[in-house]
């Protein structure tokens, strides 16, 4: 089977870290530790597991981070190189899997928790908080938080992968593959909305209008009683989308702090040699970018005692505000099974805005991966929300 | 390159808009709001600097004087009055021709000539830069406004600086060789600044080069210039009275030149000095009479 494999390459990672920011071409060229290879298809060894044929697999911001070497080395302990990336997957079953017959179209919850690993449920899994599973390094599988970082399950960027029944969610009729592809990110967004702890009427800032930001906005609007949702959008076309997804207001990154100050009547302070911040601000801020600037905007625009949700893979930032303003810093990773996030997500992807957005999903065959990655790097600017691989394609 | 191109465009626009190389124009609708053009007077303070004086000395001695003497015969009388004077004076002379100025200047002793400026009509001698520079360099002219306006450098300033002034109180050249009425300017300056007036009379310049002629007539005419005793304004003398006295002084000198010193003195005493304005007869007779040559000097064989 054909697959894209990420492998260990110190020089490439260093080059990517050093030069990627200036010469983005390198990130999809010499600095990308990725190769198109022919692998043995992953085999099913245990009950409850089944083979899947990938129909579409998205490229997520965290994938790009990993490939360009900007991801924290913190995660090096929970991946097992080499592996096939890709955790946003729409696939069809090649084998029967418990109650699901072969041929069923499914989406995959990427979390490899105790159930998949064949170990006794840990405390978290027992509560259904599968995304917080503490056994992700043990059991039948190699250490990995999700497929697309474990070498023995395969990943979405290959023709086939294996998955445990606990990860599979059948796709209802009437949803396109593209919509279904968005189910995983939407499920994360649903989880994010839950973690945000928005109370009725709360004012929310969503920093970032990429897929994560937009879907979080949708989830916040649909599932919570948030009042005003201000979305920070860098690119012009994101503005329209954000409004469709439920934003009350869309602002440019440079305007964000001022606009929130105005809307909340907060006080604006300008420290020396540091970024300005507010005394007062939104109740909940959501970083959907994962850059230092975005995270600091969130920290600095949140009222004392407010909540900052880390929805993107976070970068380093000055946490003074979290201490000084007693902010609740909340992480949100994937989704928990007990929340039934996927079920909700499969409902939400039927939403008009998501349906429209799914039309812009750009599928690439595997062998054009350099193009695909480059497209994904500049997706925001180009007006695409999601770039994906379709391994069935030949061109 | 943008800057260079813009600069060229700007210069072109100004060149076209303000008609470089042409006379400037006033939009028709703005004409009522443009003040009557104050005569464009080129200041010539520079012409009284030592450097300009040196150039002038050369121009006068090496060019003007030989040229002048080649065209006319000139005789000066009574220059000795200047020996008795020191500071600046005003030379008040009758005015009949453009030859008057070189005649008077070249008759002066060198040390006086170098410190003497000639009052000249600003509207004629100073309206273009080349005339201003030429006349300043050759004759040490000083612009005065004959309409009574004020100029940046006044004759008073120049007098105060120790320069003597040649003034033609008639204000313009005679039409027929006879003397016209005197304006008050010279007398006013004398009274104001306490400067003596030396009357100067000359004859023959009208015949040699009257109004309208561009060059002295052929045949080396004789010109005569005569300096009179300085006149000092009296304690309570009005400008008008003093002006009258200056004119009488010039008239007496003319009489003296035509007859003799003593006869002229007698006639002056008895108040019968002939009127320098000439007889009231037909114009041709006035011209005829005024162009009679002063009795000729016996021509020397080598003159």
């Amino acid at each position: 089977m054909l697959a894209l494999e990420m492998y260990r390459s110190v020089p490439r990672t260093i080059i990517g870290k050093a030069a990627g920011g200036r010469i983005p071409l390198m990130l999809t060229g010499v600095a990308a530790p990725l190769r198109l290879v022919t692998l043995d298809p992953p085999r099913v060894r245990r009950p409850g597991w089944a083979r899947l044929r990938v129909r579409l697999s998205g490229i997520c911001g965290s994938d790009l981070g990993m490939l360009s070497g900007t991801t924290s080395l913190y995660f090096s302990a929970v991946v097992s190189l080499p592996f096939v990336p890709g955790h946003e997957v729409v696939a069809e079953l090649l084998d029967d899997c418990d109650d699901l017959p072969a041929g069923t179209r499914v989406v995959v919850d990427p979390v490899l928790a105790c159930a998949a690993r064949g170990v006794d449920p840990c405390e978290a899994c027992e509560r259904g908080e599968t995304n917080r599973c503490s056994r992700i390094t043990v059991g039948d599988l190699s250490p990995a938080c999700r497929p697309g970082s474990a070498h023995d399950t395969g990943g979405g960027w290959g023709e086939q992968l294996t998955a445990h029944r606990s990860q599979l969610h059948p796709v209802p009729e009437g949803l396109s593959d593209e919509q279904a592809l968005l189910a995983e990110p939407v499920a994360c967004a649903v989880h994010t909305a839950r973690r945000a702890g928005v109370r009725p009427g709360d004012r929310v800032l969503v920093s970032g209008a990429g897929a994560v930001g937009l879907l979080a906005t949708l989830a916040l609007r649909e599932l919570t009683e948030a009042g005003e949702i201000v979305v920070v959008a860098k690119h012009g076309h994101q503005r329209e989308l954000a409004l469709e997804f439920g934003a009350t207001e869309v602002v440019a990154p440079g305007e964000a702090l001022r606009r929130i100050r105005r809307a909340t009547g907060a006080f604006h302070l300008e420290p020396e040699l540091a970024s300005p911040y507010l005394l007062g601000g939104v109740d909940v801020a959501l970083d959907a970018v994962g850059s230092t600037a975005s995270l600091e905007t969130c920290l600095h625009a949140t009222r004392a005692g407010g909540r900052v949700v880390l929805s993107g893979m976070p970068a380093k930032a000055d946490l003074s505000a979290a201490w000084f303003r007693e902010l609740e810093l909340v992480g949100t990773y994937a989704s928990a099974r007990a929340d039934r996030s996927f079920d909700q997500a499969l409902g939400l992807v039927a939403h008009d805005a998501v349906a429209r957005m799914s039309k812009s999903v750009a599928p690439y065959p595997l062998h054009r991966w350099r193009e695909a990655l480059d497209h994904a790097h500049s997706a925001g600017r180009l007006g695409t929300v999601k770039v994906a691989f379709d391994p069935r394609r030949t061109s | 390159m943008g800057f260079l191109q813009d600069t060229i465009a700007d210069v072109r626009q100004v060149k076209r808009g303000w008609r470089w190389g042409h006379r400037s124009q006033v939009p028709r609708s703005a004409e009522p709001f443009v003040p009557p053009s104050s005569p464009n007077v080129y200041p010539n303070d520079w012409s009284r600097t030592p450097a300009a004086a040196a150039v002038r000395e050369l121009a006068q001695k090496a060019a003007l004087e030989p040229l002048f003497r080649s065209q006319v015969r000139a005789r000066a009388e009574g220059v000795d009055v200047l020996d008795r004077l020191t500071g600046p004076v005003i030379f008040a002379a009758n005015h009949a021709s453009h030859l008057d100025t070189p005649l008077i200047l070249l008759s002066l002793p060198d040390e006086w000539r170098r410190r003497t400026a000639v009052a000249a009509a600003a509207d004629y001698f100073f309206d273009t830069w080349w005339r201003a520079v030429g006349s300043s360099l050759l004759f040490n002219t000083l612009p005065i406004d004959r309409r009574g306006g004020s100029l940046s450098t006044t004759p008073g300033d120049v007098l105060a600086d120790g320069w003597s002034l040649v003034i033609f109180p008639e204000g313009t050249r005679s039409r027929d060789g006879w003397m016209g009425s005197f304006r008050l300017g010279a007398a006013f300056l004398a009274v104001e600044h306490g400067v003596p007036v030396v009357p100067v009379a000359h004859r023959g310049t009208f015949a040699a080069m009257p109004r309208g002629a561009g060059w002295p007539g052929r045949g080396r005419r004789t010109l005569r210039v005569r300096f009179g005793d300085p006149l000092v304004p009296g304690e309570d003398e009005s400008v008008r009275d003093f002006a009258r006295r200056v004119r009488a002084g010039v008239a007496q000198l003319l009489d003296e030149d035509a007859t003799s010193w003593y006869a002229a003195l007698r006639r002056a005493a008895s108040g019968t000095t002939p009127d320098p304005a000439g007889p009231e007869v037909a114009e041709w007779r006035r011209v005829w009479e005024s162009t009679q040559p002063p009795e000729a000097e016996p021509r020397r064989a080598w003159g």
Partner: protein
Amino acid sequence: MTRPGFVLEVDDRTPPLLVHEGLGFRLEDFPIGTRVVYPPEPVPAVPDVDEAIRDALHHPVDSEPLPALLKPGMRLTIAFDDLSLPLPPMRAPDIRGRIIEQVLELAARAGVDDVELVAANALHRRMTAAEIRHIVGERVFRSFWPQGALYNFDAEDRANLAHLGTTEKGEDVEISKRAAESDLLVYVNVNLVAMDGGHKSVGIGLASYRSLRHHHNARTMVHSRSFMDHKHSAMHHSAWRMGAVVKEHVKVFQIETTVDNTVFPKPYEFLMKREWEWSVKDQAAALGMRRGLALMPQKLRHRTFHDLRAAYNLTGINAGEVEAVHHRTLRNVHRQQRVEVDGQSDVLVLGIPYLGPYNVNSRMNPILATCMGLGYYFNSYLGRPVVRQGGVAILYHPLDEGFNTLHHPSYVDFYEEVLAESTDPMVVGEKFEQQFATDPWYIHLYRTSHAYHGVHPFYMWYWAAHGMDHLGDVIWVGGDPKAAGRMGFRTATTLRDALEMASSTVGSSPSITYLHNPPHLLADVR
């Protein structure tokens, strides 16, 4: 001799004409037949300024002489116009300082101890110490500033405001408590344009938002035709009504001054000369300056212009009862600025210079530029506007100076947030004015920093309301398309393009009038 203002008709003999555009100017070839309105030349100045001040204080109009009003033990307040007047700032000594010195000399002689000086800056920004010192002079500054007896008016200091009542139309009159409770309030004004002075001095200069909102709104401004003509200005009618209320509570001794229009000092006098009278030197200066400015970075250009100090000459001073004084003052203003213009035209051309009342030592942001063009210059008329109803205004300004966040913090939000929503003065006023006016942060900055009040950008927009209401189209020549677009206007690179764009509104051969401004002029349209 002072030549009157007049209307030039551009013909084939007309050289290019100077048009100001922010931190620079251009030489524009106007179409033949364009009318250009030139202001009068500087009118004769008062020969002896100190003597004129003395005379005005001792022989006031409809009032006892100032010395007779000064008593020992009284409470005396001297208020004066802030740095928005005159434009550009006056070369030291400022006329206000010279007047205040004489007033204080009289007060000292009369044994008045309780004296306070307050800058009548209303919702304008607080002036810095240096700016105040420039206005009042070093002597006054040294005697009063350190003691805190010379200060900026604070319209948000609730404890120091006095509500004097309401007018017959129910308008609140709330002014500085100190001024209201003084035995005598001396107001020292510089009447640069016809809008200033009169009851606007105390009634607006020392008033709070509560009072100002009654006349500083879109509705009033649309009915102020123009606000340079107080008899036909709804804003002034309101101020006059308030003035009557003030009069009942406090004795005001108004001192109004007028200055001539020598706004550009050496070596920039050519900017005030009529172009066809430019000497070779003037032409060289214009060329040199244009090229020099093109080479300079923006900061340096800003410095070059904002460092200019005008050598104004005093043309008149009147003191005494407010209305009687103002009547005389206006005569002087009109003498210096009024030009008769025959009929309206289809297109009005205006060059917006580097300076307006609200960007002294600051930046001319797009909102201020609009206010300058569609507010001040558009309203510079008596009778009817220079441009016909539905006509087009063509304005020159690059709109590229950005915002000064120290002075104009609320402008940024107004620009980014309010104008993005609507550019209709009525709509933005309805929806946002209250929020901006009561925003604690703006109030904080207004009171402690050097920021214009939060509501001030709205006033700028209201100022332009009459213009926007009257005009069919507004086109900025050389303007930043983004900024102009945000404000609901269009841009063109050249006058020709602008006229082309305007042709859909006013036809292909419109009548054009260009107001050759600055110096300021007041078009009396017949």
